[in-house]
């Protein structure tokens, strides 16, 4: 299956928008959050955990967090990677 650009979630309050763009470079994780001081580290560790479980090593994964719950973040990341065609 071809890997393609994907997005999941919204920019609305208490949600998070996760997007994935394929590239040939090493995986780059970009985190933007309205509460980055409190949550930046948690968001990044969730992303690292999920991408390493799936063996995602290339592309750009961008997270625009609007204060989402951790379970919401996890669901959005899993969905974005599914939609990109990066299934387990």
């Amino acid at each position, binding site marked *: 299956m071809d890997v*393609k*650009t994907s997005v999941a979630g*919204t*920019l609305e309050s208490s949600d998070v*928008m996760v*997007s994935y763009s394929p590239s040939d470079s090493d995986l780059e994780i970009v985190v933007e959050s309205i509460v980055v001081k409190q949550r930046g580290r948690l968001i990044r560790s969730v992303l690292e955990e999920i991408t390493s479980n799936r063996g995602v090593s290339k592309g750009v994964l961008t997270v625009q967090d609007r204060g989402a719950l951790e379970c919401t973040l996890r669901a959005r990341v899993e969905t974005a990677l599914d939609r990109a065609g990066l299934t387990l």
Partner: protein
Amino acid sequence: MTELRELVLSSELEDRRGLLQARGLSVPTGQGLMLGAFEGDRLVGTGSLIGSVIQGVAVEPELEGEGVAVSLISSLISRAVSLGMGHLFLFTKPSEERSFCHMGFSPVASVEGASLLEWGRPGIEDFRSGLRAIAPGRPCGAVVVNCNPFTLGHRWLIERASQGAEEVFVMVVEEDRSVFPFADRFRLVKEGVADLSNVTVIPSGPYVISSATFPTYFTKGGEASSVHASLDLTIFATKIAPPLGVVRRFVGSEPICPLTGIYNRIMKETLPPLGIEVVELQRIESGEHVVSASLVRDLLSRGEMGQVRELVPDVTWAYLVERAKKIKE
């Protein structure tokens, strides 16, 4: 509760026009997806996706900060991505730039009257890395051409440029909205200047005369032309020229087309203060006409092949003859 839906009725489009004008925004031209945010039957917000450019985003003043713009943008991004787009542009007023940065957009460039932002990858920094990789490390010249199709006028301009700079980049407009497709235009230029050893022909990419940087170039006109020209040239001077090492831009004089005339004038105003010299070369003439691609297209449409022959190099002539054969078949 606001509800988002696509605008289809002409009364809805009329409301959209009113909302945009009340917020001091021009109504985007072109076909695309037009979204509306409704409270009951009342349109309170709108945003459009035309090609890969989000524009015409406006919300009723009393609902600003209520998340209407955010839901419009979320929805436009999701739809664009589901159509296979990984990179989007957004056109707005400079005063609105900040609020879009909070939605994950990054600024490309800003001039009085317009800001261009982008979302997704590959973005301007990726494009600049690509340019850095081919930069010869010496001061260069640049020519930007559409070549629709490649004429003796273009050939002459590029030849003069190659004598006026150590290295010259010829950027062929990549946007496929001209009579002749990009792949053909690019090949003809490349073959037509192959004998000039210090000339490199490259695609102009999404940041030089594209439907994002200069939408009115392709629609020929509109009040926003000079704002777009200024935006396009500012991007050239601040983002494109530096990684390539371009210090001089060559351009043919424009006695006929008013839009290109405006572009040349704004080029001479915009580039020098940003460190790029502009060299305007008097266009060559054939008989009483200035050699131009639009003249060639005009003659082609009237079947005046004999006159076309005098205006184009061999490579273009061979291509046009082949094309005419195919069309006949």
